[in-house]
C-alpha cells in the first residue's frame, strides 16, 4: 500500500545550516503516528519542510506515491494536510470566526463546518467576534485546532499541541484528540510528553540531531524505554 505521505532521505534547514539529515518517515492513510525527540532536534523543521518555510536541500517528499516537484506554502493544504502549528499562530487582526474560516480556504467539504467546531468548542462560539489573540492560551489552541479541522483534512499535523497549557486544559484537549482519533483522520503528533503519544498514536519515530534514530509500534515498547530513547 502506498503511503499518504512519505519523506525519503530529506535534507533541509535554514540558510546554510542543515537541520534534517537524510530523514525518512512515512504515514499511511488514516494512520496515527508520533514524532518524538528533545528540544531543537528538528521536529518543527519537518513541518516547516512540508510548509515550504525551511530550505529544502535534498531527498523527496511523496504524496500518495508521487514525488512533489516543488513545495510551496499552500502545497500541504492542497494535499489535504492541515497543521496545528507550534505556537498556535492565531492572527491578531482576525476575529475568532475569521481565523476559523481561514482554515476552510480551500473549501474541502466534509464533516467539519463552523457549526461543528462551535459544538466542539462552545467557548469559541461565545467569543466568535473577539480578536483571535484576545483569548487565553488554551482557547487559542482551540482556535488553532478548529482552524485545522475546518480544512476537513486527510492528515492532521499537531506540533506540541499541549505546550504551555495548564494541566486541566491539557486534559480537555487530550480528550478531544482521542475523539478525533476515532473519526479516522490521519494524525502526525509531535510531542515530548509520552502520555498523549501512547493514548492517540500507534507508531512512533524518535528523532535525534535531524535523523530518525528509532521507530516502532507504541504498544511494543514500555513508557520507560521510550523515555530513555528520547534522552540519548
Amino acid at each position, binding site marked *: 500500500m502506498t503511503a499518504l505521505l512519505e519523506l525519503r532521505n530529506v535534507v533541509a534547514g535554514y540558510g546554510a545550516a542543515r537541520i534534517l539529515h537524510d530523514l525518512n518517515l512515512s504515514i499511511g492513510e488514516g494512520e496515527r503516528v508520533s514524532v518524538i525527540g528533545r528540544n531543537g532536534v528538528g521536529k518543527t523543521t519537518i513541518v516547516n519542510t512540508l*510548509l515550504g518555510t525551511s530550505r529544502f536541500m535534498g531527498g523527496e517528499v511523496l504524496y500518495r506515491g508521487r514525488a512533489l516537484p516543488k513545495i510551496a*506554502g*499552500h502545497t*500541504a*493544504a492542497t494535499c489535504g494536510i492541515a497543521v496545528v502549528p507550534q505556537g498556535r499562530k492565531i*492572527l491578531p487582526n482576525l476575529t475568532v470566526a*475569521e481565523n476559523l474560516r*481561514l482554515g476552510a*480556504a480551500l473549501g474541502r467539504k466534509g464533516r467539519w463546518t463552523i457549526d461543528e467546531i462551535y459544538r466542539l468548542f462552545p467557548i469559541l462560539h461565545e467569543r466568535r467576534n473577539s480578536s483571535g489573540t484576545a483569548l487565553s492560551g488554551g482557547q487559542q489552541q482551540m482556535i488553532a485546532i478548529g482552524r485545522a479541522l475546518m*480544512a476537513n483534512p486527510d492528515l492532521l499535523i499537531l506540533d506540541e499541541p499541549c505546550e504551555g497549557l495548564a494541566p486541566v486544559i491539557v486534559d480537555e484537549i487530550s480528550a478531544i484528540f482521542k475523539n478525533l482519533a476515532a473519526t479516522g483522520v490521519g494524525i502526525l503528533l509531535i510531542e515530548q510528553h509520552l502520555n498523549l503519544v501512547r493514548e492517540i498514536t500507534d507508531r512512533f519515530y524518535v528523532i535525534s540531531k535531524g535523523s530518525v534514530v528509532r521507530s516502532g509500534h507504541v504498544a511494543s515498547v514500555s513508557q520507560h524505554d521510550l523515555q530513555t530513547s528520547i534522552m540519548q
Partner: protein
Amino acid sequence: MLTNALNGLVYGSLLFVLSSGLVLVYGLRRVVNFSHGALYMLGAYIGYSIALRYGFTAGVLAGGIALGLVGIVLDLLVFRNLSDRNPLVTVIVTFGVFLVLEDIVKSVWGTQNYTLDPPAALAGVVEIGGNPFPAYRLFIIGASFLMAMILVVWLKFGRTGLFVRAASVDPSVAAMCGVRTDLLGPAVVGLGAAFAGFSGIIAAPFLSLHPAMGSEILVLSFVVSVIGGLGSFVGAFVSAMLLGQMQAFGTVYMPELASLLPFLLMSFILIWRPQGLGGRSA
C-alpha cells in the same frame, strides 16, 4: 461656506480613494509605493485619450483596467522582490518607477495641459443651500464613496478579502491554510493601481491634466497615509477628509499658506501620535 465644505469633501474623497490604493499595497507588501502618483497620472491620461474617442464611461473603465494591468506587471517585476528589503531601497526603487512612468506620460502626451469636459449628463449645476454646485463634483463624492464601500465590504466580508487580511499579517499562516499567497500579491497591487487609475480619470474633469499632477498628488496622498497611520483605512479616511477640508478652506482664507498646511498638519499629528491616527503603536 457650505460650498467650501463640499469642495473639501470632493477633494477629500478623491484623496481617500487614491490613498486606499497605497494602504492596500502597504498592508500586504509592506512597500510604501512612491510610484503611486504616477499611476494616478497614467490613469488620467489613458482615460482621457479613451474618453475623447469612446466617451467618458469607456474612459473611466479604461483608466482603471489599464492601471490594474500595470499594477500586476509592477508587482511581478518590482514589488515582489521588495517585500523584505530595507525601506530605503523601496523608496529609491519605487521612486525610480515613478520617474520612468512620468517620463513615459510626457513623451506620449507632451507637456501641455489638457482639460476633459465632464459627460453631458453631469455637466450641469445643482442648487445646494441656495448656491449652485457643479453636478460633476457630486458625482466624484458619490463614486469615491461607492469605491471605498466596495473595498471595505470586500475586505471585511469577502472570502478573498479575508485571505488578503490574513496574508497581510502572516503570509505563511495564510499559505498553510491553502491560500495562494503568490497570486495575492499581483492581485492586490493590481487593485491598488486600479484605484489610482480610477481616481486619476475621475479627477480629470475637476483638476485638469498636466505633467506635474503625479508629483503633486503623490505628496498629498503620502501625507494622508502617514497621518492616517500606514496600513490603516480608517486613519486614511479621517486624514483624507481633514486634508480635503484644509485644502478647500485654506485656499479661500489663507491662500499664501494653503500649500504648507498639509505638512504642518502632518508635523503636528506625528509629534502627538508618531504612529499616525489609525496606526498601532509599534
